[in-house]
């Protein structure tokens, strides 16, 4: 099914784990260092309420391209910070790769739609990006926070709002 951000609980509450999604709209990329900085320094300058975040650190953008290669990175590395991150920001959707810890699965229940992107398909995902800009932590290079406009990103629901999980 097609889905467009920004998402609302109403829009996603009946989407079942295992559903294939084509996602369009604005999403924010961030990974280890951005999570660590925000959670451990209690520094949340962006309004991420009801936003979608993507665990991803792109390769540099070649001239003439809109983005570098940009597939998902391993979600489990963010597990340590995710429960606090979700509570502090009010995000509604996470895109990543692979399994989450039991604690994160619990923390996502009722609040977060967890989508997985296909690992190792960075070129294909780069073609879904229509616009990309760094909005926070520029000094972190590929680990900065990017605001991305995407079109028809192929994804799968790994855990739905009810907590059903296919992994």
């Amino acid at each position, binding site marked *: 099914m097609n889905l467009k951000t920004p998402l609302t609980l109403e829009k996603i509450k009946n989407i079942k784990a295992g559903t*294939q999604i084509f996602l369009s709209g604005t999403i924010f990329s961030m990974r280890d260092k951005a999570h660590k900085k925000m959670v451990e320094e209690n520094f949340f300058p962006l309004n991420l309420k009801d936003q979608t975040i993507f665990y*991803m*650190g*792109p*390769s*540099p*953008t*070649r001239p003439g*391209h809109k983005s*570098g*290669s*940009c*597939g998902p*990175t*391993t*979600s*489990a590395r963010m597990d340590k910070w995710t429960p606090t991150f979700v509570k502090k920001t009010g995000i509604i959707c996470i895109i990543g*790769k*692979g*399994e989450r810890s039991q604690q994160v699965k619990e923390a996502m229940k009722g609040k977060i739609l967890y989508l*997985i992107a*296909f*690992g*190792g*398909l*960075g*070129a*294909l995902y*780069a*073609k879904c990006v229509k616009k990309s800009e760094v909005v926070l932590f520029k000094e972190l*290079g*590929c680990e900065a926070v990017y605001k991305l406009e995407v079109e028809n990103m*192929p994804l*799968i629901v790994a855990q739905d709002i009810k907590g059903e999980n*296919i*992994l």
Partner: protein
Amino acid sequence: MRVIEAKTITDIVKQMCIKAAHNLPADILLAIKKTQKQEKGLAKQITTLMLDNAKIAKKELYPLCQDTGTTVLFVEIGNEIFVKGNLTKAINEGVKKGYTEGYLRKSIVKDPLFKRKNTQDNTPAVIHYSFKNGNKIKISLLLKGAGSENKSVLKMFAPSATLKDIKDFVLDSVKNAGASACPPFVIGIGIGGNFENCAELSKKALLRKIGSANKNKDYNSLEKDLLKEINKTKIGPQGLGGNISALGIFIEEAPCHTASLPVAINISCHSSRHITEVL
């Protein structure tokens, strides 16, 4: 004695980094095409996307994966060739140029524990040197992403371990790698040697061609058994179920201490990027 300028090595390594980041080896591509034919439903759709990704990467020069890895090199140096200049420096210069001029992601941090500051050019590369006869240099280069490298393991078994113990260790490790290491995998296994030699063998095994067999029939039979067992796990492409969980499994063995039996498992994702050049 043949003489080769260090600059030549730099240029070749630079080209190899860029080529490896955008082009899957022919045998890997063929194995994915075969997987696509053997899968159904979602697994088939995913492998079709994997083939699309390879086409886009090659044609439009997007790296196959944003994680262009740690640069790992195996360099075999002939005894009748002389490199004019510093070989290690020349290789690292090639990596730096390849990653910078090729728009590849620089992922190496200088201090692993405290500062974790990026070196900005993906150096230093991990380089394994060996020596042979002749007047050539053979360079094999892998771009090794962290998603699969992080799931790699080494265990020092006692020689009393059974074949089943070893097989269970491999299967458990592969199951544990799961979706986050990007299956279907290529799996390199080192058996024997000592602690560091065993790990190196498992990395070197990843350079073997899909379909190639260990020359020793016992080890080859173990390779075949393990491949069957791993595919029975039904991990499938991206860990979402399917018939093919590994594209290939390669064992490299070496003599070891009478009291030891080291086993190392180096996992590669489906995007097993490596390239070899002989100079």
